[in-house]
């Protein structure tokens, strides 16, 4: 028997995982480099700072951040470029693998846990790459490509199932729309949460006494400030929130056609609602005095953790109507 499309697809998935792993290493190298290079700038500036007083230190701190973005960063930019190039290669391989799986199954490749992981991680990578066109967020590569590598690796090893036909309950146009938009929402919420994590770390760094910023959390010196990170996170999360709202409504329409009721507090429905409510809370927190900044960032992180929980634990261990993992218990 010649290798089937699915066999080729699986080989490509493993290849993509390997390439992503390399991309992850490159992005991590970049973060490490940021830490290293700021030290050299800092070492040069501390002497002058000591003689020019505290006002001068603050000024130097700003200069040094700019320096991190421009001149002294050539070595690091190489790692960023390598990381992004590897991500693009990994993405293309991943895309071909996913398309082949769809061709093998003769339907959209997101009808069970394995296929859903395949497509969702593909979309996360696509959104990560797409966002770079408007805003340089390559520094999120460690987080995002790390997450993609782990999710794709775990699901390929743990959730793989061979191609089987769609059960009648999944034969619906809503499978295509509902699940695809859910993945899209997951991708934006994930990027937003990664930025919120960065925001918290940056916030912590900004709270350090100026002197110790030269020795602690140096990798963050060359990243945008906490407020900028928060604004970026917000802009991604509201896009994710709209997709999530659509997922909820589309899911209800599908549930009505399939099960005869549009809402029944099935476990998956409960968690989709909980996530929606948390992110609604996030959006309100951002415009509530006393909640902007750190508290709202935590809400984004809790929200995305719930997304991951919904997708892993709820899918695998909770009994409900959404038991489509394709895995036997």
């Amino acid at each position, binding site marked *: 028997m010649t290798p089937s499309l699915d066999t080729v697809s699986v080989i490509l998935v493993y290849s993509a995982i390997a390439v992503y792993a390399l991309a992850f290493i490159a992005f991590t190298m970049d973060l490490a480099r940021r830490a290293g290079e700021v030290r050299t700038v800092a070492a040069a500036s501390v002497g002058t700072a000591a003689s020019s007083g505290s006002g001068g230190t603050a000024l130097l701190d700003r200069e040094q951040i700019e320096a991190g973005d421009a001149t002294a960063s050539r070595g690091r930019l190489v790692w960023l470029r390598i990381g992004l190039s590897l991500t693009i290669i990994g993405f293309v391989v991943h895309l071909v693998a996913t398309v082949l799986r769809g061709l093998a199954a003769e339907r959209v490749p997101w009808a069970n846990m394995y296929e859903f992981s395949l497509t969702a991680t593909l979309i996360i990578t696509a959104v990560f790459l797409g966002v770079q066109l408007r805003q340089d967020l390559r520094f999120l590569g460690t987080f995002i490509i790390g997450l993609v590598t782990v999710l794709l690796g775990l699901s390929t090893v743990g959730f793989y199932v061979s191609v089987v036909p769609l059960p009648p309950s999944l034969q619906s146009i809503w499978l295509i729309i509902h699940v695809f938009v859910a993945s899209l929402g997951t991708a934006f919420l994930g990027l937003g949460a990664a930025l919120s994590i960065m925001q918290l770390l940056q916030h912590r760094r900004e709270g350090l006494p100026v002197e110790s910023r030269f020795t602690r959390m140096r990798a963050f010196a060359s990243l945008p400030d906490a407020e900028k990170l928060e604004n970026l996170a917000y802009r991604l999360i509201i896009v994710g929130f709209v997709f999530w709202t659509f997922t909820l409504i589309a899911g209800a329409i599908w549930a009505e056609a*399939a099960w005869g009721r549009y809402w029944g507090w099935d476990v998956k429905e409960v968690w989709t609602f909980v996530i929606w*409510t948390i992110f609604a809370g996030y959006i309100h927190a951002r415009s509530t005095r006393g909640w902007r900044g750190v508290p709202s960032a935590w809400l984004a992180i809790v929200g995305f953790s719930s997304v991951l929980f919904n997708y892993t634990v709820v899918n695998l261990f909770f009994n409900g109507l959404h038991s489509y993992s394709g895995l036997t218990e």
Partner: protein
Amino acid sequence: MARSSDGSKATEGVLRPSDHIDSTPADGGGLNEPKLGVLGYLRFFWRQLTSMRTALVLLLLLAVAAVPGSLVPQRSADPNGVAQYFVTNPDLAPILDSIQMFDVYTSAWFSAIYLLLFVSLVGCIIPRIRHHWQAMRARPPRTPKRLSRLEGFVRDERAEGTVADAVDAAERTLKRAGYRTERYGDSVSAERGYLRETGNLVFHSALVGVLVTVGVGGGFGYQGQKIIVEGQTFVNTLLAYDSFSPGRFFDQDALDPYSITLDQLDVVYEEENLDALGQPTDFTAHVDLLDQDGTTSDGEIKVNHPLRVHGNDVFLLGNGYAPVITVRDGEGNIAFSEAVPFLPQDANLTSLGVVKVPDALPEQLGLVGFAYPTQGYLDSGAMTSVYPDDIRPVVSFNVFTGDLGVDDGIPRSVYELDTRDMTQVAGRGTDVDAIILEPGQTQDLPNGLGSVTFESMPRFVSVDVHHDPSQLWVLVFAVLVLLGLLSSLFIPRRRVWIRVTAGADGGIVSEYAGLARGEDPGLSAAVSALAKQHADRL
């Protein structure tokens, strides 16, 4: 707080609760405030309830309160799971039950949270709707003195042109870009993005709409379940349902007595893919519909494609086999001849069923057994079904005789046989072999009790019949929620000013600046673009 009924002040922006990030902090710590009366306290609590902080806490509380319903089975979604939970956790279950953990989404505490949240929401949006209504009809505010302090400031000098022409051009440019404009001397003040607040208010009002339609509209609906065997007819009347749950305001006359006859259930099985051999890939129930006025029509019910008829939605939720069993009693009379739905136990539809024959003489008979659509054997030698299609159908029965316990008026499940007052006369545990039949075969019962015939094995479907008049409204409000959300998050609300002055040595100087009203990352770029468009017109 920006609350003001004064028309000119109302234009100062969007009305928000006092702890909104865009509103100015309330002044004074309240140290010198007079003592609050009853009305004062009420006003104080109302303000607290409608504040952003309270709404936010309630929202997060709602998220937390929804979680237990996914950890513990719920009566509404999984009544059997609840019963099972009581068996496996006899100590914990009553405690959980006392705090409504099995009815989380109708519980007092969950209801309290969302009702408070919605009261807070309504209290917040009503004044905002009033305020927004005024703001939409108000004039854009006076041009500030120093535009250079505002965002996206651009200054453009040119050697020729007149101030009057440039102001005209500025107004046209802004109008073209969708701004509402107002001239103040040689400057134009402009505002756009009212749809942002409109969308925000639509979003929140539509959420209230969803809640109200679900709460009230749901009461007019009903849902019922019915098992229909191939060839049988179901008439839409209350008595015909196997189970029925009406809404609060349900009226029995609302049932339209049409009838549905199940002609045939077609099932398609996967026959090529070895990884999924025998997996059903399609269920199609072919039905005949008979209306009250005598018109007939054909219909189809599939999974994901309910039959929408007479304001009802008929869903195909389950299926199985209903062997037709005929029992003759010891006196040779036909005591029973019916299709008996058997409950599927596994993917290959090994099905469990009970035949109760209360009219048998001299004693009542009960049969408990299995139907195997394609009979095969387990390693243990026990019979099982090896394929879900009816390729080699066989039924097997253990036979009991005695009192079925159906005559005392206590309702009993048709799927269970109470054998306490019965004696087993055939099958495992007795000297007589179980009764095993293929279609058309008849076997005598021991002790001259009669005989059992397996006639044929039609399929049955279980259908859910739903009527929910509020459904369409919920959808309408849900779409409004989405549209409102889109415009409230992505339409920027901004003010822009263009001021033209005469240059020192002839020519004109144009100044441009903007002010964000809420999140607006693109403001500077928008001001620059307007400056360029204006320059192009000069």
